[in-house]
């Protein structure tokens, strides 16, 4: 008999207030922005016993210097930043087989489906040098152009091989394209040319 007494409903009207309170707390205590940036691998410090870095042949090396006045010198020639991407692309791809441009080595790349893909991987290395007085803004602009050059080459290779943009490939295919077009950008030891 007593069990038949109806249980009173709990008043839930304050639930909204509690939820609001939590919501406001999270709005205040968190950040929304996703960090974006240009990712690079620094070279490891060579051990003392090891011989000096393997000499890169002259034709395989493109040196880019960003001076203290934010000017760009590519192999000691002044260039504008707008030309940089195309020059780097030309250097890496070497479409005309120029003897002063990097050689390429046929490399076997294992595709995700198990087959082997032979691609002439460029031996070219882009060496980026900056001065202590170079502005960070310019340095990042140059880094951005270098990344853009490599991304465009990867896109072209991906479209040719897999028929799709690099970013739309699956992980295994993307890895294969990355092996075919490695972003060889060397951030050499800093140099002080400006004396400041």
């Amino acid at each position, binding site marked *: 008999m007593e069990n038949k007494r109806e249980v009173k409903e709990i008043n839930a009207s304050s639930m909204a207030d509690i939820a609001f309170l939590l919501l406001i707390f999270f709005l205040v205590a968190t950040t*929304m922005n996703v960090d974006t*940036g240009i990712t690079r691998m620094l070279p490891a410090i060579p051990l003392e016993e090891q011989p000096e870095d393997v000499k890169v042949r002259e034709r395989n090396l493109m040196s880019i210097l960003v001076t203290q006045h934010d000017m760009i010198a590519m192999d000691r020639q002044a260039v504008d930043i707008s030309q940089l991407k195309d020059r780097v692309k030309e250097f890496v791809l070497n479409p005309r087989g120029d003897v002063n441009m990097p050689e390429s080595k046929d490399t076997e790349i294992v595709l995700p489906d198990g087959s082997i893909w032979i691609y002439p991987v460029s031996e070219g290395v882009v060496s980026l040098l900056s001065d202590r007085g170079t502005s960070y803004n310019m340095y990042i602009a140059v880094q*951005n152009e270098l990344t853009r050059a490599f991304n465009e080459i990867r896109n072209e290779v991906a479209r040719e091989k897999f028929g799709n943009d690099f970013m739309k490939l699956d992980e295994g295919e993307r890895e294969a394209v990355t092996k075919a077009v490695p972003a060889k950008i060397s951030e050499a030891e800093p140099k002080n040319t400006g004396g400041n």
Partner: protein
Amino acid sequence: MAVMKKKRKGGIPPISTASLPDVIFMILFFFMISTTMRDQEIMVKTHLPDATEVSKLEKKQLVSYIYIGQPVDSQQAQYGTAARIQLNDSYQTLEDILNFIASERDKLSEADRMAMTVMLKADRNTRMGIVDDTKQELRKANALKISYAANKTMSIIGQ
């Protein structure tokens, strides 16, 4: 009929707010998932450079931050306007980077240590000297995976 008429006299019936908590909870969960905790106060001005080819950093717990730039206005009276390095919550010198990286690495599990990324948040007007010095310290600390923080834009040439 008479009963019906009496009921209508009260005007518009109140809108039920019983589903309001559900709606708010939904917004709450959205924010809990899509945001991260604000962890430190930034004491240097970091107006990031622009770039088009940026990539997102997926795992936030693997990322350590180094801020480089002028002290913020409220700190300039004490610390001047020369560019400074901020690690955690205070201004530090180059020599502290080794310790900072070591302690950040200790926080990670064994498996994650290789994937640790250091994000350099440097002001766009910084000179490369201090950035290069920082990079050299990072090489010494064997924290080789770095990322130059930049804002994503559509085009940077001709700015």
